[in-house]
């Protein structure tokens, strides 16, 4: 029996990890005019996406198959795909069309659905949210469009014919079996993202980014402006530990929060 028929027989997963480029989470953000000015801000992969990559690589190590990192973005976003490649994903893909501009969640998820289908994936990992909007809509929204199961805010996973995830629920942490195909959104949890080694970085340099495109419906949600949050009025500062009792009194009498 050759390897291909063996692979078909035991149904190895075809895994896609969604990655997004965002501003460095340690960066200061400033607004120029009515838009955030990111011209001098370092861009990086959204931190939760590295947990998604780690989980995807562990899934492949347990069950075989392939891992493809997919981003939606203009050419300037390819560095995060190279970073994903250096961590160990097999393929890197960027979907884009110059007509897209800012996609709302409906348009973005439509593009992702089409891309995932043409990649033939049955398992998608992504960060629980991207560190720019923090919305967290993509995982569950994409799952619904594909008719797949999903789990969000996942902090651990075990792999067999399905994926058993750990996720926080009202009363604690639940172990939940998620049948494939599925979209799994990852939080920072049990898995520490692996560091790229020299060999990985060398391979990433040479790796080709595969390009694809899709059809995006018109956006019905349009960004009209960005603004800085209102500055807080200066508070009261006290010296020395004994002032703590005064602060407790103020919390009761002035702030009314106790």
């Amino acid at each position, binding site marked *: 029996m050759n390897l291909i028929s063996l692979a078909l027989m035991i149904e190895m997963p075809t895994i896609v990890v969604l990655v997004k480029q965002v501003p460095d989470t340690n960066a200061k*953000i400033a607004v120029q005019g009515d838009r955030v000015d990111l011209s001098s801000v370092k861009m990086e992969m959204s931190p939760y996406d590295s947990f998604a990559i780690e989980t995807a690589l562990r899934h492949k190590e347990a069950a075989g198959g392939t891992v493809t990192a997919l981003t939606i973005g203009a050419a300037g976003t390819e560095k995060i795909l190279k970073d994903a490649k250096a961590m160990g994903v097999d393929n890197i893909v960027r979907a884009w069309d110059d007509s897209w501009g800012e996609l709302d969640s409906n348009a973005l998820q439509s593009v992702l659905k089409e891309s995932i289908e043409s990649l033939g994936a049955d398992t998608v990992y992504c960060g629980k949210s991207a560190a720019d909007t923090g919305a967290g809509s993509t995982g569950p929204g994409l799952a619904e469009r594909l008719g797949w199961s999903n789990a*969000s805010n996942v902090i651990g996973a075990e792999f067999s014919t399905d994926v058993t995830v750990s996720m926080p629920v009202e009363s604690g942490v639940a172990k939940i079996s998620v049948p494939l195909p599925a979209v799994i959104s990852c939080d920072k949890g049990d898995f520490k993202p692996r560091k790229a080694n020299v060999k990985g970085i060398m391979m990433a340099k040479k790796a080709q980014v595969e390009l694809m495109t899709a059809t995006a419906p018109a956006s019905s949600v349009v960004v009209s402006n960005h603004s800085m949050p209102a500055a807080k009025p200066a508070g009261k500062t006290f010296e020395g530990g004994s002032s703590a009792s005064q602060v407790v009194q103020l919390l009761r009498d002035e702030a009314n929060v106790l």
Partner: protein
Amino acid sequence: MTNMIVIAELTKGNVNPSTAELVSAAKAMGGDVTVVVPCTDASIADGVSSYDGVSKVIAVKSDVFAGNDSSGWATALDSAIPAGTILCLATARSKDVGSRLAARRGLSIVQDVVSIEGSNLTSPIYSGKANQTVSVSGDAVVSVRANVFPAVASGSSNEVSVVDASGDVKTAVQEVMHRASARLDVSEANIIISGGRGMGSPANFTHLEAVADTIGAAVGASRAAVDTWDEIPHSMQVGQTGKTVNPNLYIAVGISGAIQHLAGMRSSKYIVAINKDADAPIFQHADYGIVATWEEALPVFQDALSNLLG
């Protein structure tokens, strides 16, 4: 005029009081407000029937609402609620269910809204380092942060119609490891006391726990503390790569106020900072700052709280 549909938030099987905030958010967008109560027992909708400004209450009864599967929730709700703009609370579960509902109906979703002017919705981005205002045309799904909009008054007596629904549940819970302590999670607490690396060791978090138990607070931590000490789990982390919180009172102890941390807690109503370094950035965001070591300040703080509340 479009239909505004509010999905009541469920907490431990009952309607969360922030549902009344969702009604005023819906009214700020304009339109006729219907409140939908997901439930296994329709009697929990009784409290909602007294909300002012509501034209209809629908209790959607299904077994799926006893579980956590977002597909089950979304399909059951979708079958029972009319077309319109849908509002839900920006909690982990409702953001998930809302995303599925939006996708199911081919709508867009706007998450974490904190301000509404008609069809212009504002949400924090970069964990609160800036705000983003979007304009929405047509129907959408909108998740709204708790503790931001005023709750509508009660006094009305709206009729409750009960609809039975079934949903497409895709995942199965195998087991739940219950939280060892009865203490609240930072994402659901009205008061949070958090420690940073300035606490010196994870063992010293017991002093924060003692204060927390006195005032019914949750205990949180900075990223520095979570990354330094294995004993401090990520579930406690407040900040841009942890949880974003907006409690009534946030007490930061031994936390310098890195931009990452500030992003996750700056929208707290009142902030108390205890830090020995008078130049720590956290003091610029504190309503009440105490320049002292935690060893000096916390026992006094604890005693004063016990005297006041005990």
